[in-house]
């Protein structure tokens, strides 16, 4: 009796301590989550704070007098004449007219406000509309990057303002009169890379990423699933299959740059495939993603209860029928989830692509699997290393786009798991 009493006494006495312990344990867990969320928050505020201005472009709208004599042009359909025509002069003249007090003597300072590629825009517009020659058109052009930086970041210590005081007064005045305006940066989403930050876009990198990911998906998914099915359902359990299993697990932990070296040696040097193309990028990323897909697919197959197999076998299904009609459909959601996570990992990879030449300055948007291309994370890497400060905001903006892709892929994986997964 006394024994029991003391037992209960001991329990009661320790109860408080045990509750405290539990509360402490929970607090540790909450702290861990808070730290992780805090790090994420810092990352996001930093990137968004630096990058949101990358989604804004600065343009200038003016009445351009397309005077044939001034441009040395009397037939815009003649290629030779187009080549020798002066498309800068009409822009400079139009801008001088917009700035009260500016004269012909200020032409160099005025010219520095216009984007160097604005003359290309004018040339292409005139080529498309030959009848514009001799008329006056209201057109919108990008401003020079220096103006863009001034408009967006005046007073920001992280940026250098390169305009002189005269130019600053002009820009302030033009801003007030809405000749210079800021608007959504569609150029960023419709153009390829450029060395001029105002003109640089990520469309080329997005298309390159999509092409590379497509190759990765159509290769790694069937190969990975087939390997997993064989290893899980058909392969005999012996030392050899153990050896394969250990090595697949090892491959999943190999640093990604090794796959790049392998790709360089095998696909480019041995097979003679071209450098910098999405096919080779896709092949390399396939090698990298395969172990992830095989491992997750095997786990998905393992989680199909044996009763399903036994029931199918019991009514006379062959081994292949069991696998294809019953096991595979039930394991598919898990396999897809694993594949999507593997693909998301591949989407963010730069290191293996460095060696096969996909870390490159490529202006033209790729239009095929054998066209030179680069991918989104590489574009971020290239911009972050550029001397022009205006690329910082573009790099951060590109990171946001990349994160959006990654988040949507992971969300898709979660949605598919929720939607398709069956519990027994």
């Amino acid at each position, binding site marked *: 009796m006394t024994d029991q009493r003391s037992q209960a006494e001991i329990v009661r006495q320790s109860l408080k301590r045990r509750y405290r312990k539990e509360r402490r344990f929970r607090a540790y867990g909450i702290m861990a989550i808070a730290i992780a969320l805090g790090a994420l928050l810092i990352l996001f505020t930093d990137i968004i704070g630096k990058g949101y201005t990358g989604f804004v472009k600065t343009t200038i709208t003016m009445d351009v007098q397309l005077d044939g004599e001034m441009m040395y042009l009397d037939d815009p359909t003649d290629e030779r004449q187009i080549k020798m025509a002066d498309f800068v002069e009409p822009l400079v003249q139009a801008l001088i007219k917009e700035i009260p007090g500016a004269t012909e003597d200020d032409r160099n300072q005025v010219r520095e406000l216009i984007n160097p590629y604005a003359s290309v825009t004018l040339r292409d517009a005139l080529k498309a509309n030959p009848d514009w020659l001799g008329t006056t058109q209201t057109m919108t052009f990008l401003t020079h990057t220096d103006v863009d930086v001034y408009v967006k970041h005046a007073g920001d210590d992280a940026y250098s303002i390169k305009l002189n005081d005269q130019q600053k007064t002009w820009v302030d005045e033009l801003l007030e009169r809405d000749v210079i305006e800021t608007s959504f940066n569609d150029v960023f989403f419709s153009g390829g890379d450029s060395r001029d930050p105002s003109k640089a876009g990520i469309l080329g990198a997005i298309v390159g990423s999509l092409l590379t990911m497509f190759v990765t998906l159509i290769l790694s998914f*069937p190969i990975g699933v*087939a390997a997993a099915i064989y290893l899980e359902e058909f392969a005999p359990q012996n030392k050899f299959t153990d050896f394969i299993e250990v090595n697949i697990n090892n491959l999943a932990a190999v640093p990604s740059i090794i796959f790049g070296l392998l790709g360089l040696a095998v696909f480019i040097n041995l097979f*003679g495939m*071209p*450098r910098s193309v999405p*096919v080779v990028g896709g092949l390399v990323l396939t090698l990298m993603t395969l172990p992830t897909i095989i491992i997750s697919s095997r786990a998905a197959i393992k989680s199909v209860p044996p009763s399903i197999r036994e029931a199918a076998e019991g009514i006379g299904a062959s081994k292949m029928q069991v696998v294809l009609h019953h096991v595979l459909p039930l394991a598919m959601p898990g396999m897809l989830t694993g594949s999507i996570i593997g693909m998301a990992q591949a989407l963010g990879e730069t290191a293996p692509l460095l060696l096969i030449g996909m870390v490159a300055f*490529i202006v033209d948007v790729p239009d095929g699997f054998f066209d030179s291309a680069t991918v989104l994370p590489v574009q971020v890497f290239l911009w*972050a290393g550029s*001397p022009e*400060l205006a690329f910082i905001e573009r790099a951060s903006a590109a990171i946001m786009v990349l994160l959006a892709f990654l988040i949507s892929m992971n969300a898709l994986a979660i949605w598919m798991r929720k939607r398709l997964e069956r519990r027994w």
Partner: protein
Amino acid sequence: MKLNKALATVALAGSVAAMSAPAMARDTISIVGSSTVYPFATVVAERFGTKTDFSTPKLESTGSGGGLKLFCQGIGTQHPDITNASRRMKTSEFELCQSNGVTDITEFRIGSDGIVIASSKEAENLDITLEQLFLALGSKVPVNGEWVANPNKNWSDVDSSLPNKPIRVMGPPPTSGTRDSFNELALAAGCDELPEAASLSKDEHASICESVREDGAFIEAGENDNLIVQKLIGDTGMYGVFGYSFLEENADRLQAATLNGMIPTAEAIAADEYPVARSLFFYVKKAHVGVVPGIAEYVSEFTSNAAMGQNGYLKDVGLIVPPRAALMDLMDKAESMPNLTLDELK
């Protein structure tokens, strides 16, 4: 059975994509090489792409050595057409090219780049000789005739005219061409000023005079020079080593140290008066001219007055352009494309 068929189709499509990779003809110029030349070559490539009907050349930043290795791999469209370098081709690289059948190469010297030691405008500027710089940053320095691990903690330990502040310098990692040039042109040159350096053997000279201290005074910042710039602006006790173009881009916030009495200006670097200046090059594979369209036109764009003249667009992005006479020579070279010979490199 439907699933079975679908699987087979996907697998077939996959293998077709993998197999159908012929070594196809290329219509885009492929350029590799130095990360120092990259910002200039990309501007030329882009201008070339918008001005002409050729597609815009593809540029990879592989470093000078990596670029020459790829370039010398052989003839054929799977190999690059042009390589950029922030130093001259070595004789060993020339021989590698020759042995792989890349016999006809034309060399273009396209201007200069200076390496600067910069700090925030609010920091105390350095006025330093190369000898003092070596004593501050070398891994081993002579003390009483013995080479010992660098004991200098503050700049003023090296020379009393220098600031009484801890030595802290950020610079590029050993993989960078800028670091190679810094070691060679700044440190080794400073080391040679010391009387003790005369008695070093060739191997000792390379290992002592061209190595940077590793005790934390020199901080390797990775290839991203923007990062160094950001650090300098935030930390007035820090100095940074990078290319002249980054100084020019941040001229309103950074100041450059005086080296051997010379301030890095475009003029001083072009005239080779600034001690840590180097020439930039590109090499053209002549066997590809006419095979890959646009090579001759790209070279002529690069060497034109619009690009490299005194008002050229390359000057705007920080290239130190060659004087007019040298540019005229380059223009001639672009037309005749003379072969590079081993004797020129020796």
